């Protein structure tokens, strides 16, 4: 279903035009609403609508979740003891980004992205839910389904079963609730031809438990997301990459003392690469092992992760390649809805890169955030600093379903 595909360029252009039109329309509508109706709402207004909450019930600065928002998410987006109100199961998130400093492969300083979110709970006790996130495309890329899964969550225990297209559960958000502009390189680095990263959503099944004390997950993936996600489309490649066997993801994180969690994770799989030009085939068995720790409170977050990787044949010539990636983030919230942070990144795949990422966020309104990020590479000749900004907001406003 999500295998590598050759896209008909005519269809791709048509879809791009359609997505662009939707983006422009969404931005005009959203901008107008933002200017005219500065009333409270939420990043996923569906949930706010359902329970009559304001955005601050679940979020610090949207889309970052506070402790209650995380508990609500762990419980499968439901509060069994709370009365439900009318809701419309569709919401829209829109983000406009500005990059002052472009890399040689980038051409656009301003990039818009509209994201459609749909979710609903169903079943006898509302313990079943679906969650879908469709990206309308950014930087000229076509739109794509980014998440689309069904799940069952027992709200008291946090035991869940999930199937479809989902993200890998990590100690720090890699994409959808990313607190910066750029994804942690430790979650996004590739090795040779192998594009196995932690940031890419997977297609498969996942089981586990999420509670205040313990996060345990095990997942089997048959494929992964192949769209352009939040950035430009990937350059065309001669190699078609498929899963030779199900990829296994496992992680365990336990709260050892108040506010402090420690854990470990493993990702292992085997991918096959086939050349479209000459038909040659090779496979790469790969492993990613990591440790993680986080000190999280209402004012301060201190999160670190280190991953070590091993690929048996990522270059197609039988050369074993080791890799590593890690980050340490310190974040401070001077108020309940603002934060400033600094992140140190280091990756060796096997080429070493390191950077400092300084960032700050404040909310122009309760359903939006404005982010400024300054990314400074460390001792990397030929690279440059990056200044990025992003305005993000969610629609519709709260209590619009009567």
């Amino acid at each position, binding site marked *: 279903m999500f295998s590598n595909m050759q896209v008909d360029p005519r269809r791709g252009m048509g879809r791009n035009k359609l997505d662009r039109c939707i983006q422009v329309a969404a931005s005009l509508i959203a901008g107008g609403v933002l200017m005219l109706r500065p009333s409270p709402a939420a990043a996923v207004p569906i949930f706010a609508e359902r*329970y*009559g*909450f*304001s955005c*601050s*019930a679940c979020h610090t600065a949207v889309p970052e979740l*506070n*402790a*209650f928002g995380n*508990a609500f998410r762990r*419980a499968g987006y439901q*509060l*069994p*003891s*709370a*009365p439900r109100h009318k809701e419309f199961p569709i919401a829209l998130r829109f983000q406009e980004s500005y990059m002052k400093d472009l890399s040689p492969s980038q051409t656009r300083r301003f990039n818009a992205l509209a994201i459609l979110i749909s979710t609903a709970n169903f079943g006898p006790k509302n313990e079943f839910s679906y969650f879908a996130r469709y990206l309308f495309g950014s930087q000229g890329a076509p739109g794509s389904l980014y998440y689309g899964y069904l799940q069952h969550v027992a709200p008291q225990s946090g035991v869940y079963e999930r199937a479809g297209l989902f993200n890998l559960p990590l100690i720090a958000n890699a994409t959808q609730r990313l607190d910066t502009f750029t994804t942690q390189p430790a979650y996004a680095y590739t090795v040779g031809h192998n594009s196995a990263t932690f940031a890419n959503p997977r297609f498969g099944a996942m089981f586990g438990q999420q509670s*205040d004390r313990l996060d345990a997950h095990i997942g089997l993936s048959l494929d992964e997301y192949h769209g352009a996600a939040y950035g430009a489309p990937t350059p065309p490649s001669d190699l078609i990459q498929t899963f030779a066997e199900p990829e296994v993801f496992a992680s365990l994180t336990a709260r050892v003392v108040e506010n402090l969690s420690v854990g470990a994770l493993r990702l292992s799989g085997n991918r096959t690469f086939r050349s479209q030009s000459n038909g040659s085939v090779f496979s790469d068995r790969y492993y990613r092992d990591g440790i993680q720790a986080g000190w999280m409170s*209402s004012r301060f977050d201190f999160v670190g992760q280190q991953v070590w990787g091993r690929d048996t044949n990522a270059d197609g010539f039988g050369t074993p390649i080791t890799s590593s990636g890690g980050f340490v983030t310190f974040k401070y919230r001077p108020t*309940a809805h603002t934060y400033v942070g600094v992140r140190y990144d280091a990756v060796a795949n096997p080429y070493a890169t390191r950077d400092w990422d300084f960032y700050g966020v404040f909310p122009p309104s309760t359903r939006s955030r404005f982010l400024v990020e300054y990314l400074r590479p460390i001792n990397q000749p030929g690279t440059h600093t990056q200044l990025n900004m992003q305005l993000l907001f969610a629609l519709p406003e709260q*209590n619009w379903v009567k």
Partner: protein
Amino acid sequence: MATSVVVGESITKYGQMSSSFGMVGGFNPTIVIVAHGTTIQFHNEDSFNHTASGIPSGAFPGGNPIPSTALSPSQTSDVSQVGWSSGVLTGGAFSKTFSTSAVGQYLFGCFYHYPTMRGVVIVQ
């Protein structure tokens, strides 16, 4: 000597019930009936933030009536005074002690989780 009552706050533990004031829930007890002069303290039994904040109305409004000033502890410590609030109670925290100086019915709720979390203090 005045008696004291501790009211638990939890959106996950304490469900909804109908009352003559409308739906109430999220507190234990949700309808707090006390004798004049009793002191009241609120205890956040969840792992995330709540408040216990007065609602200056005779009936529960549809929209959230609790202002953001309720996120700071109020100067007044009397539930019969307009604007009383515990301020933000982090997970497991206890509020300051509130007095009940006047007989009456006083609506209250959580700033974050109104209308799911709301209750009534009845001072007799």
